[in-house]
């Protein structure tokens, strides 16, 4: 049995000792004295302090101590461990898209796993799974979209509360390549709320050259005077093979024609990224800016009809979608409804080229496959021992002992009141 707030229990013990000390300095009834003029004594409490070398009112003292300790213990949050393992593990298995060898992740998890441990799987989402479910996830193709370690840590925290009921400590194990792709702004803050250190087992990550959106060459099917061609040329990405890259999962094809061809679809189904960005689109109105994941391009732009899709890659300044992505086979087709003015050098501006880089990112968006730096790694690992179970259970958790302790305190106080009243009457 443990308590969530040991200092409150200690305060209760100190209070009980203080109460016993007060009973040593008991306010005993002073000696009787027959005084005919007693009626002139002002009304006051019919007790007066007098020292005693022995505990007075032992029954009252016992009841008061019981009530005080029960209330203090209830406030401290007691909970029963039961027969349990000394240490449980919470293993976060990263199977997101930046993992190079998914089987290696499964092997690492299996090596660390013991009965009673919990596994949180991180691919495009985070969820608690069994070991068998993890094995099934390993053989599935990697998710197109990035997963977030923040979500995995939140799920891990919930699972830890369950583990804490049967364990003294809960150790956090991160099996992941720990790339920037799974990190977000909240990751370190959420990690800091885990009350203990984490063991990090890093696995290999995919090659940065394959997934680097900013350097992958793009196969362009467009007119020779297309301004996007100039933009890609400035970035040095123009020149992908239009015929031989159909089977490459990393291939990126930009189609400026009005419609896609079967070859384009084949590229997408094979795992490539097909960006359908028609050059000629009828404008409905104009808009002042467009924004992608990493860039903002400010200009008066004619706006065609917004494409429809679940995953928005870029959007106008008023929130409407400018580019959406839809999965197709193992790849995806990205539809871009962004027109450039026929004249001008907008396509050559750095901000627009940044927009183009995001739009030509592989399926799932920009992939940042850089390994986290050492400071981030240290923050993720943390310091000190594994998390204590008491620290993982919040005071608002269901604590069945509390109501019984409070009931005990109420009964003790009621009996104390009855006893005291009876003594005063006699």
């Amino acid at each position, binding site marked *: 049995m443990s308590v969530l707030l040991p200092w409150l229990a200690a305060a209760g013990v100190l209070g009980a000792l203080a109460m016993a000390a007060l009973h040593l300095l008991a306010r005993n*009834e*002073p*000696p*009787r*004295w*027959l*005084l*005919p*003029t*007693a*009626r*002139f*004594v*002002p*009304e*006051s*409490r*019919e*007790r*007066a*302090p*007098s020292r005693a070398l022995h505990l007075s009112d032992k029954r009252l003292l016992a009841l008061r101590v019981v009530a005080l300790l029960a209330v203090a213990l209830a406030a401290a949050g007691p909970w029963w461990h039961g027969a349990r393992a000394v240490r449980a593990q919470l293993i976060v298995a990263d199977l997101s898209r930046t993992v190079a060898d998914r089987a290696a992740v499964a092997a690492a998890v299996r090596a660390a796993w013991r009965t009673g441990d919990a596994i949180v799987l991180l691919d495009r989402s985070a969820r608690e799974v069994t070991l068998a479910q993890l094995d099934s996830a390993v053989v599935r193709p990697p998710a197109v979209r990035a997963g977030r370690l923040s979500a995995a840590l939140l799920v891990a925290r919930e699972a830890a509360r369950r583990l804490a009921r049967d364990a003294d400590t809960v150790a956090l194990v991160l099996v992941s390549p720990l790339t920037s792709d799974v990190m977000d702004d909240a990751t370190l803050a959420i990690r800091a709320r885990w009350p203990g250190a984490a063991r990090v087992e890093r696995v290999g990550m995919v090659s940065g050259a394959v997934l680097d959106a900013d350097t992958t060459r793009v196969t362009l099917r467009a007119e020779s005077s297309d301004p996007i061609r100039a933009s890609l040329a400035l970035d040095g990405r123009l020149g992908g093979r239009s015929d031989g890259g159909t089977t490459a999962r990393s291939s990126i094809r930009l189609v400026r024609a009005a419609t896609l061809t079967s070859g384009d679809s084949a590229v997408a189904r094979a795992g490539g990224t097909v960006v359908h960005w028609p050059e000629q689109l009828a404008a409905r109105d104009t808009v002042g800016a467009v924004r992608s994941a990493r860039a903002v391009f400010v200009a008066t732009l004619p706006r065609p009809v917004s494409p429809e899709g679940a995953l928005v890659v870029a959007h106008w300044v008023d929130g409407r979608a400018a580019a959406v992505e839809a999965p197709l086979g193992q790849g995806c087709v990205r539809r871009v409804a962004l027109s450039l003015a026929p004249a001008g050098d907008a396509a050559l501006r750095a901000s627009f080229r940044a927009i183009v880089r995001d739009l030509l990112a592989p399926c799932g968006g920009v992939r940042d496959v850089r390994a986290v730096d050492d400071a981030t790694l240290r923050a993720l690992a943390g310091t000190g021992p594994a998390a204590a179970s008491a620290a993982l259970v919040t005071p608002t958790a269901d604590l069945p002992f509390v109501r019984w302790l409070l009931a005990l305190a109420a009964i003790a106080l009621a009996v104390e009141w009855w006893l005291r009243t009876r003594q005063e009457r006699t």
Partner: protein
Amino acid sequence: MAAAGYGALLDALRGLSWPARRASRGATSGTHASRLRGTSAEFTEYRAYRQGDDPRRLDWKLLARTDKAFLRITNERAVMPTLFVLDASASMAFPQPTLEKWQQACRLTVGLAAVAHGAADPVGIIVPGPVRRALPLRARGGVVGEIARLVDGVTPAGDASLALVVRQAARAARLVVVTDLLGDAPGLLRAVREQVTRGVDCVLLHVVARAELEPPTAAVMAEDPERADVRRALVGATRDGYRAAFDAWRGEQARDWRRSGARYVDVTDDEPADRAVRRVIGNARDEEDT
């Protein structure tokens, strides 16, 4: 205290007189001025004869010399039958175990009875209580000793009413009530007023124990011997309040009793009894009535 224990007190009081504050109603010849005008040799004045006067009181010699009818008016001297009402309620048994308040009340009673009896006044006593004890008005020798033995045989207890006894005191010309006024003081005051209205010379001796005026500093649970429901802690925080309330009550009693026409004298239990008696009878030169 045996009757012989009052010897020193009686010796100290020998020769004192207790003059009446007003003319006595008594007809028996005594030492006090009487309301009656009679036939004694103590000439006072002449008064013209009026129809209905007793012709035997005419001054015949004057009538013979002047041919005018005058009555010879003389002062009568009468006794003052003095009745003592001694409060023997439980509140008088204080402080335990010396009962000094009760002892002082007994000494005052015996001393005053001796002084009154010294002037040939009949004296008597009534001690109300669970067992009422009384000695009727008597002027014979030895009555003071009887009173002493009577009071010595009384143990203060109960809370008998003094007012009832006072109302029944019909023959007394002087009524002395010795009490601590902790019983039915308002009722007693009304009864005494009735006696004062009838012309009785009433004296109230308010006996107060020193321990009541200055209770001990140690914390005690004060209990009223006559009222079980009065049970209060007398500690440092309440002592000043107690003394203030008690003093205020005593002042209020003194004022009320003096307004009633009775003579009010308060006596503490540590005051020498002979000195207190002198204050009561008004013979002490260095004392003043309170």
